[in-house]
């Protein structure tokens, strides 16, 4: 038990230190981490992400807490929370104390200039990854959504129409209106009940 808690703490501490760009990078990194260390299944992680996205507060912290709860109950919640919160808090305090000036230096800005686009690429990858693993995009023969409208060319799966529509609609609602994610996720759940 203790070793699980320690492992969770260290995993999130590591993710936390590299989570430039906030929540969704942490999720991408978590997915990567789970490829090598299968503490939970990808489908379970996506359920946690959905719940994290519905709740108030930062998605990174919410997912950490959700994952901790799933794996080890309340002690797991505590160790994941501390793991995700402590390292970046220390960095913030150090910056607040000593490096506020350093942040404005051209070298720091140049570093961030190259680093931030990488986080965008990583986030895009995690979106593609979820779509592929769930049979929405380029599904493997075993992973095709049975009750969907699947488009394929020469036997190669391209995408599943209903899911793509849900992706586009939820993206547009987020981008063009002020609808809160909680309603988008609930709406998508209802849409899922109706069309699948």
């Amino acid at each position, binding site marked *: 038990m203790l070793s699980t808690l320690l492992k969770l703490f260290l995993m999130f501490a590591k993710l936390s230190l590299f989570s430039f760009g*906030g929540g*969704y990078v942490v*999720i991408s990194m978590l997915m990567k981490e789970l490829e090598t260390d299968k503490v939970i299944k990808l489908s379970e992680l996506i359920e946690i992400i959905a719940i994290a996205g519905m709740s108030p507060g930062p998605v990174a912290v919410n997912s950490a807490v959700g994952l901790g709860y799933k794996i080890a109950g309340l002690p797991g919640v505590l160790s994941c929370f501390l793991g995700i*919160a402590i390292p970046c808090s220390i960095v913030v305090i150090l910056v*607040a104390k000593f490096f506020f000036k350093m942040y404005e230096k051209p070298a720091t800005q140049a570093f961030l200039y190259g*680093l931030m686009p990488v986080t*965008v690429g990583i986030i895009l990858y995690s979106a593609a990854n979820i779509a592929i693993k769930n049979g929405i995009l380029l599904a493997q023969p075993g992973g095709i959504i049975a009750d969907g409208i699947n488009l394929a060319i020469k036997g190669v799966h391209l995408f599943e129409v209903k899911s793509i529509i849900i992706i586009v609609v939820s993206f547009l609602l987020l981008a063009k209106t002020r609808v809160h994610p909680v309603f988008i996720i609930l709406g998508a759940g209802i849409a899922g009940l109706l069309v699948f």
Partner: protein
Amino acid sequence: MEVKMQTKRLKLLADIFFTFFKLGCVSFGGGFAMLSLIQREVAETKKWVHKDKMAGIFAVAGSLPGAIALNTSVFVGYSVAGIPGSIAAIAGNLAPSIAVVLSLMAFYSRVSSSPLAASAFKGIYPAVVGLILYAACKIGKTALKDVTCVVIMLLAFICVAVANLPFVPVILAGGAAGFAISRIRSLYLSKKGR
């Protein structure tokens, strides 16, 4: 005198905790949605931090690792009352969302085995993809400053998606590339100027 100082300090910490607790309750949508609320509460109502300093704090909080709302809380809490202040701020800010996550998790584990939940989740998975794409766009708006940035982003995507490289070296390589490109540019510009 000593006791009076201590009660004053405890009151301040409680004030920080409850201010951020209140912000945490309304922070649906995460970091970016929360910034204007933080600004209003912290700079205008409580006057803990000067208004002009807030933009700088947001910029720093956003470019350090970690969620921007969380980093801002820690930063403000620390400026107002040191390390205890930052702990009060972070605890207050996150308590509401942690409570909501845990109740949803507990509720979900009761219904998860029903076939209805399975088909609801077939609708939710793509919505999560939409959510993540939107997050990428939002960060992209500030991160992708020019064509070079777009190229770095594409290379990073290929590195992690096709070459399956681990993230941390790719992130650091991006930073190093940014540093190198800026250096080369400034050398080039100074030569041209001569």
